[in-house]
């Protein structure tokens, strides 16, 4: 069990670092999403199922959706700007 | 249990509930609701104050069916009731004073959202004042942050949105540190209620266990709240946020919001960790140094500023420096002076913001100094009010600011550490001179007659009746400043007895 926890923790740290390093915003968001999922697995390991459900629904679900929508919105604004320029 | 003892709880619930209720009402109705609510809370807090002064001791109020270490609690003493009363008066006057600006600057469909934010902000301030549970304090700190951000950005232009982003980033850093500090403290003591944590911390301090984590946890909470209350190196969000948001927001933010965090810090020092442990940890010295730097640097920046609102905002940075300097002296009297300064600064800074908006309205809404020339003649009441506010800030006798500076000096004199005494006194003098420089510069400018300028730019005179709500607010603020300045003794006694109840 300890080894499993350790692997998850290392994965979390790797995710957190690669979020800040990655050049592509979409990649960062995807990595953050997986970070949240791993976190919710970790919470199941730590015997807190309430937290795991909430983190899976809120952290990996809704927050990530909001990130995606923001990115999409930004791209939409970018596109309409480009059209205007043309 | 007397019925009066229920009132703090009713105040919190009432202000909390008016937030959602405002969401379905129209703009005008919400304004009325908001004013009625704040007035009611003010009256109730005054009754609580009378009750606690009479009974002479603090009491705790169970939030739920479970006693102390298991359930939530709020705690009511003289200091809490006093702060709640003063805060509700100031909040009411700020909202009244800025009503015209709000109508002009905000979109008509977003009027009621403003009052939702104001109600929730007020509720969170009350909860921060009264709560006896450190995690509840964290939750309400977050409400406070979000609703303050709403108040900043509701007037929408690029500046305010950038300022609120900056504000959010800084405050979130602060609340992250605060939350981590709370977690450490919970791990060390196993409690979340302030009184129980204190007992455990006393035991830890006596046995010498967990010294390093305790120190780290004190540091985390102090730094977190210092960031949130804009102590000098963390003040970068402040001038933009206060300078460009609508007037009543700036007044509320500068006089109440940042003070709410300082009060929470004082509460943590006295009721959670215990002031002896804090003194032994030497964190007060750090606060002292940062306070001194803030006092000077805030004033220097204010002198450089060419926009009257931003100048007042930078002056807030300096005044927060004063408060932290008082805390940093580490003595009882220093803290009393700080608490008094919180009240006096709230009264005079709100007055300055209201008066400054009156002056700028008489100058075609220009905020730079050149167009303010002679504004004191065009809007006489605002000119007088601004002068009084400035005098109070500088520390002219008979006004509130003088008393707090006097007590700061007194506290510095009585300090056992002579380097601290010398430093505090020197910086007090320097800062007062700098204060006088920029405030008197403004006062002289608004009383320099400039009929040519007024004619050329077609400025209009504003009479007292032409700005009835603002005049009312200004007169009340001036009266408050006088009251705090002339009869400060009873208030000082109240603060002293309140702090004793804290301990």
């Amino acid at each position, binding site marked *: 069990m300890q080894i499993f926890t350790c692997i998850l923790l*290392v994965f979390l740290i790797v995710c957190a670092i690669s979020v800040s390093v990655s050049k592509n915003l979409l990649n*960062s968001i995807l990595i953050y999403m997986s970070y949240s999922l791993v976190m919710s697995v970790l919470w199941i390991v730590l*015997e807190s199922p309430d937290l795991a459900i909430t983190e899976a629904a*809120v952290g990996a679900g809704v927050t990530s959706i909001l990130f995606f929508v*923001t990115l999409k919105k*930004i791209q939409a604004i970018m596109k309409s700007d480009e059209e205007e320029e043309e | 249990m007397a019925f009066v003892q229920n009132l703090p709880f009713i105040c919190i619930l009432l202000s909390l509930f008016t937030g959602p209720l405002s969401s379905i009402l129209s703009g005008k109705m919400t304004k009325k609701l908001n004013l009625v609510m704040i007035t009611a809370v003010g009256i109730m807090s005054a009754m609580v104050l009378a009750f606690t002064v009479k009974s002479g001791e603090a009491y705790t109020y169970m939030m739920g069916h479970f006693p102390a270490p298991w359930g939530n609690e709020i705690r009511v003493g003289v200091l809490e009731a006093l702060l709640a009363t003063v805060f509700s008066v100031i909040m009411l006057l700020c909202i009244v004073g800025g009503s015209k600006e709000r109508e002009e600057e905000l979109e008509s469909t977003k009027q009621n959202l403003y009052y939702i934010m104001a109600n929730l902000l007020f509720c969170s301030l009350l909860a921060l004042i009264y709560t006896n549970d450190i995690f509840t304090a964290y939750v309400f700190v977050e409400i406070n942050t979000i609703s303050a951000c709403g108040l900043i950005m509701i007037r929408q232009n690029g500046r305010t949105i*950038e300022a609120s982003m900056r504000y959010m980033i800084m405050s979130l850093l602060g609340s*992250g540190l605060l939350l981590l500090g709370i*977690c450490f403290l*919970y791990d060390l003591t196993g409690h979340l209620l302030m009184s129980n944590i204190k007992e455990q911390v006393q035991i830890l301090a006596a046995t010498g266990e967990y010294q390093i984590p305790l120190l780290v946890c004190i540091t985390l909470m102090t730094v977190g709240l210092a960031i949130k209350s804009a102590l000098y190196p963390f003040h970068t969000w402040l001038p933009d946020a206060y300078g460009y948001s609508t007037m009543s927001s700036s007044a509320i933010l500068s006089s109440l919001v940042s003070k709410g965090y300082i009060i929470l810090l004082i509460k943590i020092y006295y009721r959670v960790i215990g002031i002896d442990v804090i003194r032994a940890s030497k964190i007060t010295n750090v606060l002292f140094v940062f306070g001194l730097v803030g006092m000077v640097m805030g004033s220097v920046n204010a002198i450089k500023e060419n926009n009257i609102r931003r100048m007042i905002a930078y002056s807030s940075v300096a005044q927060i420096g004063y408060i932290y300097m008082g805390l940093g002296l580490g003595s009882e009297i220093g803290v009393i002076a700080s608490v008094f300064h919180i009240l006096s600064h709230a009264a005079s800074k709100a007055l300055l913001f209201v008066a400054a908006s009156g002056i700028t309205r008489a100058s075609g809404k220009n905020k730079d100094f050149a167009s303010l020339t002679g504004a004191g003649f065009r809007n006489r009441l605002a000119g007088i009010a601004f002068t009084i506010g400035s005098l109070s800030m500088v520390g002219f006798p008979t006004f509130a600011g003088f008393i707090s500076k006097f007590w700061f000096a007194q506290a510095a004199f009585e300090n056992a550490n002579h380097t601290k005494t010398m430093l505090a006194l020197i910086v007090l003098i320097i800062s007062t001179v700098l204060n006088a420089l920029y405030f008197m510069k403004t006062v002289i400018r608004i009383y320099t007659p400039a009929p040519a300028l007024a004619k050329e730019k077609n400025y209009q005179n504003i009479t007292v009746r032409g700005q009835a709500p603002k005049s009312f607010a200004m007169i009340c603020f001036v009266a408050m400043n006088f009251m705090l300045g002339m009869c400060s003794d009873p208030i000082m006694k109240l603060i002293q007895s309140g702090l004793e109840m804290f301990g």
Partner: protein
Amino acid sequence: MMNLTNLLANYGEAAAMILFGIGFTNLLLQNNLIKKIIGLNIMDTAVYLFLALKGYIAGRQAPIVVDGVQSVEAYINPIPSGLVLTGIVVSVSVSALMLSLTIRLYRRYHTLNFDEITTMIKKEEK
């Protein structure tokens, strides 16, 4: 100062602190607004991980009463879970607020770089 054997035993908390540091650095230093917000979320979840580890006791079960067993020896500490539950909701609302601020800023200044926005505002003023 540093108690290394203890630190190794507390490896979970150490990892949480490192995550906190990464999140804090991102929130403070990243120029990109979206990465700043991800940093904020990482920082918050790190604190929650720290708290959840506080409540964990090896060999005990989640605090949901099974078969009427109500002894302390059977379950882990429920308090940290409750606190984290509160915290998660706070952090989702804060990040929604930050994201909407980002959209507004992008709409006006057409960049996600906070430094560029600041310099543009300064130029505007002049």
